[in-house]
């Protein structure tokens, strides 16, 4: 069986599955149970300054969106950082780390944006025996208004500055957690690197309103008739998170900077995808809030089986495997031609592909009176929509035309050569062949 041991910016853990800083890592009771369940590491719920802790709302703090069968697809929250006193958290962290020396224990921190605050608190927290720090520059609600969280994360100069203070204050690894509430994720990532960060982790939650109560005309979760934007997470944010991870992984400035992938990780497969896109490990929050700690068992068994199947012996081998294949649109091979093919034995004649293709723009699927659906190769642009809407997995597939085959739609013979937009005759700024 593949070895899942992971080393992330010098921090060792028995597997690459960490719990993200959030309610599941809020206290000793939870973290002990998480470790018992098999989690490789935890990022403790974000610690704040000494003194009176922040307070949370006393009404609902979550909102959600659902898929079929009321599966939770996206969660929205208006929770703040830990609402328990610093000393209590530190004492608990110390006890837990002592009992679970092989697990990663990371302290997430968010204090006001001044040098003294950061430099005072890190050494104190380090006394717990924690393995590293995660700087929470991501929280999009409540803390940002106080000049913390995403208020810092949205300004690259602040990220660089705070990271540098932290590096000066401790020898332990510094992970900078990035907010996705920004137009170009590379700017904060590069700033973190310049500041000396050992790694970045992303994404934190996305500004969101998850639903509106149509009786009281107020966003949910509703507190005494008012609502506010929260932070969105769960399966729905995974595609956004993966893109940001991939951008950082393939950007020459940040390539090689360890990335902890976060956002919608629910199964081993999600984790494997993040790893392939360049993450060194993953962090999980919503999936555990939905299903409990036990899901890590499936993640462990699934990832090991997958690595075995692929003949890989370590997580590190998988990490970054897909990065070379992430490119810009303009470099995609326009001479690659595929056609949708419907497997008539699998087809249940629901007609969804027909409705999709007919009412989208291609009208490439025919329907007979006895409900036989077929792709017309002379119309199919291979958009993949039918594959996406068909309820039967594997029923519609994409067949690749071989060089020399006729593309019935264009009437052209499929070329064996690679040809992209930069050289395409329709491109006014096409560069002549080199």
């Amino acid at each position, binding site marked *: 069986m593949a070895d899942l041991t992971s080393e992330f910016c010098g921090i060792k853990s028995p597997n690459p599955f960490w719990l993200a800083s959030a309610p599941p890592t809020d206290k000793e009771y939870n973290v002990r149970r998480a470790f018992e369940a098999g989690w490789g590491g935890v990022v403790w719920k974000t610690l704040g300054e000494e003194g009176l802790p922040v307070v949370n709302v006393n009404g609902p703090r979550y909102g959600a969106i659902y898929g079929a069968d*009321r599966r939770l697809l996206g969660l929205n929250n208006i929770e703040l950082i830990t609402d328990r006193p610093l000393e209590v958290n530190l004492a608990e962290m110390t006890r837990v780390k002592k009992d679970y020396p092989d697990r990663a224990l990371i302290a997430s921190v968010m204090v006001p944006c001044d040098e003294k605050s950061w430099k005072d608190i890190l050494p104190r927290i380090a006394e717990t025996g924690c393995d590293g720090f995660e700087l929470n520059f991501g929280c999009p609600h409540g803390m940002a208004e106080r000049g913390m969280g995403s208020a810092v994360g949205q300004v690259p100069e602040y990220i660089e500055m705070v990271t540098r203070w932290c590096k000066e204050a401790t020898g332990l690894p510094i992970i900078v957690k990035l907010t996705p509430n920004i137009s170009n994720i590379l700017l904060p990532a590069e700033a973190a690197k310049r500041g000396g960060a050992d790694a970045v982790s992303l994404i934190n939650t996305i500004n969101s309103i998850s639903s509106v109560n149509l009786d009281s005309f107020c966003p949910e979760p509703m507190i005494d008739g008012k609502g506010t934007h929260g932070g969105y997470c769960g399966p729905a944010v995974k595609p956004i998170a993966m893109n940001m991870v991939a951008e950082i992984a393939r950007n020459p400035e940040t390539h090689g900077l360890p990335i902890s992938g976060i956002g919608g990780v629910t199964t081993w497969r999600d984790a494997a995808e993040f790893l392939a896109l360049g993450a060194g490990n993953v962090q999980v929050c919503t999936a555990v809030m939905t299903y409990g700690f036990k899901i890590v068992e499936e993640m462990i068994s699934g990832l090991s089986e997958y690595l075995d199947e692929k003949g890989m012996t370590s997580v590190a081998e998988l990490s970054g495997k897909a990065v070379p294949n992430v490119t810009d649109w303009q470099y995609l091979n326009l001479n690659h031609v595929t056609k949708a093919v419907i497997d008539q034995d699998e087809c*249940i004649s*629901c*007609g*969804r592909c027909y409705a999709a293709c007919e009412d989208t723009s291609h009208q490439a699927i025919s329907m007979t009176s006895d*409900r036989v659906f077929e792709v017309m190769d002379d119309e199919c642009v291979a958009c993949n929509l039918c594959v996406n809407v068909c309820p039967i997995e594997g029923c519609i597939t994409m067949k690749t035309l071989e060089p020399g085959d006729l593309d019935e739609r264009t009437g052209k013979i499929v070329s064996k050569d690679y040809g992209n937009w930069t050289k395409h005759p329709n491109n006014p700024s096409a560069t002549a062949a080199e």
Partner: protein
Amino acid sequence: MPNNERTSGLVSARLPQSDYAERFTDLHPQLDDHEAQVAADRCYFCHDAPCMTACPTSIDIPLFIRQIVTGTPAAAAKTIFDQNILGGMCARVCPTETLCEEVCVREIAEGKPVEIGRLQRFATDTLMSKQVHPYKRAATTGKTIAVVGAGPSGLAAAHRLAMLGHDVTLFDAREKLGGLNEFGIASYKSTEDFAQKEVDWLLAIGGITVEAGKALGDTLTLDSLQSDFDAVFLSIGLAGVNALRADGMDLDGVEDAVEFIARLRQSTDLSTLPVGRNVVVIGGGMTAVDAAVQAKLLGAQTVTMAYRRGKDRMGASVYEQDLATSKGVSIVYNAQPVAVLGGGACRAMTFEYTAEIDGTLQGTGEMVEIAADQVLVAIGQKLVGAPQGLTIEGGKIAVDVFGKTTMQNVWAGGDCASGGDDLTVTAVAEGRDAAMDIHAVLMGEG
């Protein structure tokens, strides 16, 4: 000693009083909100949905299910009623396994259709329980129409005509409206007096004058209706039953299944209904199954359905056959009735086994005797009381695709008319369609 399942002869109160309500409860209980959500989520919202094509009233099934999913069951009910004003009853009695659910793509995909019938009931019950009628009549047209027979076909026609602004007079031979909804449908399909509640709800459209207890044929003639009304719609069902030719049919305890069921449906205290210890039901259709199951539920010790042909030829669907056997009914295939035995009261019945040879059914000479202190005959109904002058075709009033008979301004639909299966939903479809044709003709569009 009180009676029990083993008490001989035709006796009542075979069960403790408390058992009846439980035994005759809904076959398919109403879905609660959560169950409805889970069931509705399974619908794929098919394009040009096959289920909709299979529904004789062409209810827009994917649309109404989507309306349930999005939390608007009243809108879902409206989608159903637009096509089928008796959607509430149909949700309970349709043999969905041979209609919409049979062709549901999820039946094809995983052998488990979307539960269309139960979802339909969820939607229609939600709206009907609000005690409001969702339709308004159009401005009056001044046209008058006689509808004869207030079963599903007549009710559907009357409602549609009244909605279009016509003045309808609804005649029925019986004092109670509803036809077989009230007198025929198995009690575990239509519980809690649903048939009457539905009639009352439907009549709330207004514009329908009810003339109950008036049979066509007595004082009421087609001639007089034709002269008094602008149009006539006949929906008199099949009021007669086919006779079984066998010795001993006059013995006590031998009865037509339809009468047995009607008595049961009208009973307010099932413990007063006599039922045999050993009941034999002759026939292989839906009526035979209903009679057999209900005899068993009443406390008969043994109930045997005897059908003269093989399992595959049986009128009742496999689903219904399974229902019967699950309730403890045994089904004997390939057995044709020979004689009822007994003196005064029946005691047993003899059958001869059959085989289908070259497409014809032949006795094999092998006989079997089955104990029977009650024999229920369910070998089909037939048309009686069709007015003179109408063309009869295959034992039914001949009509064209619009429900027009061969007589001027006379339409017919439902079981009494040619074409279509003898099902509640088909009767509704034919009543509705005839109404639309009557409307078109009377308003000069047809």
